[in-house]
């Protein structure tokens, strides 16, 4: 069971949260983005073993999105950050 420290609500149980993927920036302007670049944005992931930066949503709580630095092998959560908070 993960104990996820929501930056707004504090530590809460895993079932309250939803994993939201690796952060990615949508390429623009759309008309000039090649199929390859669009596919990379939609589908390619680093899928790191170990240290991993990812977005989560406190879906069953405050509903806010936040950034998580987590280890995908040990499941240790290093820290959580509010959006825009300096890394």
């Amino acid at each position, binding site marked *: 069971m993960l104990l996820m420290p929501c930056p707004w609500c504090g530590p809460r149980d895993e079932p309250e949260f939803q994993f939201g993927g690796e952060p990615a920036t949508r390429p623009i302007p759309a008309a000039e983005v090649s199929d390859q670049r669009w596919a990379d944005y939609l*589908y390619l992931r680093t899928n790191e073993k170990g240290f991993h930066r990812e977005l989560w949503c406190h879906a069953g709580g405050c509903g806010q999105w936040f950034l998580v630095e987590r280890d995908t092998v040990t499941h240790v959560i290093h820290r959580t950050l509010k959006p825009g908070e300096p890394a």
Partner: protein
Amino acid sequence: MRYSALNLFRQGLAGQTGWPQAWRSPEPRPSYDAVIVGGGGHGLAAAYYLAKVHGMRRVAILEKGWLGGGNTGRNTTIVRSNYFFPESSAIYDFALRLYEGLSQDLDYNIMLSQRGILMMAHTEHDMELMARSVNAMLINGIDVELLDAAQVRAEVPLLNFGANARYEIHGGFTQRRGGIARHDAVAWGYARGASGLGVDIIQGCEVTGFDIAGGRVTGVQTTRGAIGAGVVGLAAAGHSGVLAGLAGFKLPIQSYALQAMVSEPVKPVLDTVVMSSATGMYVSQSDKGELVFGAGLDLYPSYAQRGNLPVEQAVIAGMLEMFPAFRRLKLLRAWAGLVDVCWDYSPIIGPAPLEGMFLNCGWGTGGFKAIPAGGWMLAHLMATGQHHPISAPFDLSRFTTGRLIDEAAGAGIAH
């Protein structure tokens, strides 16, 4: 040595002292024509078919742990081919047909038990969607049958047909050629067959990098030294992304933990495989008597080979809802495998972005049932450099062209 009645008799007379090891464990040679990374079912099958079908002899399998110690030894051993799209039916049914002849082909009993699989429908809407799926499968040439509630009850009377059942049973469908096979035996049988044809199986050998010259892979760096390679095949399931990273490209894959567990062994109570998307579980009874059941994904990336409690709790609750009689059983073991999930829940088979390298990955939650086909296709690619007609739709390029094969429902579990 062949496993035959005559040899069994001879060995009986000799006190069972003359059986050779099932496969050799040689030191790695400096180079091979073909190197396969990953000694699970898919890698072993690919090596076997490279040697048997394509006549290649200088072939090596590199496995960082032990044979079949990853997902091949961690799945719930279900085989079936009831998929929605023609491309999927073609590859999964090719696998099932190879499974049907595999014990004879390998001279190794993989204990294939075609006891049928039964997918449940819990609402009228489930039934309507199921009828659509069944029709699609029938058009694809897959032998499935739609069942009403009374037929399901006749097949599996132990299911919860009580008045207070939370997941009422409206019907289901069955594929009678589906069933289970002994997962370890599939790995060991392919290993023995491949080794007998001259393939070097090298365990405890982790790939740490790739040698690349002129945009082409020329060899692998391993914990047991450098090994030259004419072509390289990747069959590393949940670790495919790690290998891709070493080779300098990314894959449209995320690795998740998929849990499975077994109960204590009991006398025969369940003679088919029961699956339910609504309760997120699938269960069968092993030959030893244990109930083998599994779950949906732990829905965040993991390389931990262990699952977390919420999903375990959900799958057990789902099973007890469907089979109240199992309430008193003790849980014997629980574990997880690392599955490589693609966005459309279909595999990636084909050339990698690096010349001389070929991919067999992205099988996600359903790799075991596909082992013979995955191996066959990877072998075909490595030997000829060309797609087999069955593997062509599963090329990596589909993520750019947009021609995805969305088998979210065919995968049969919650994602």
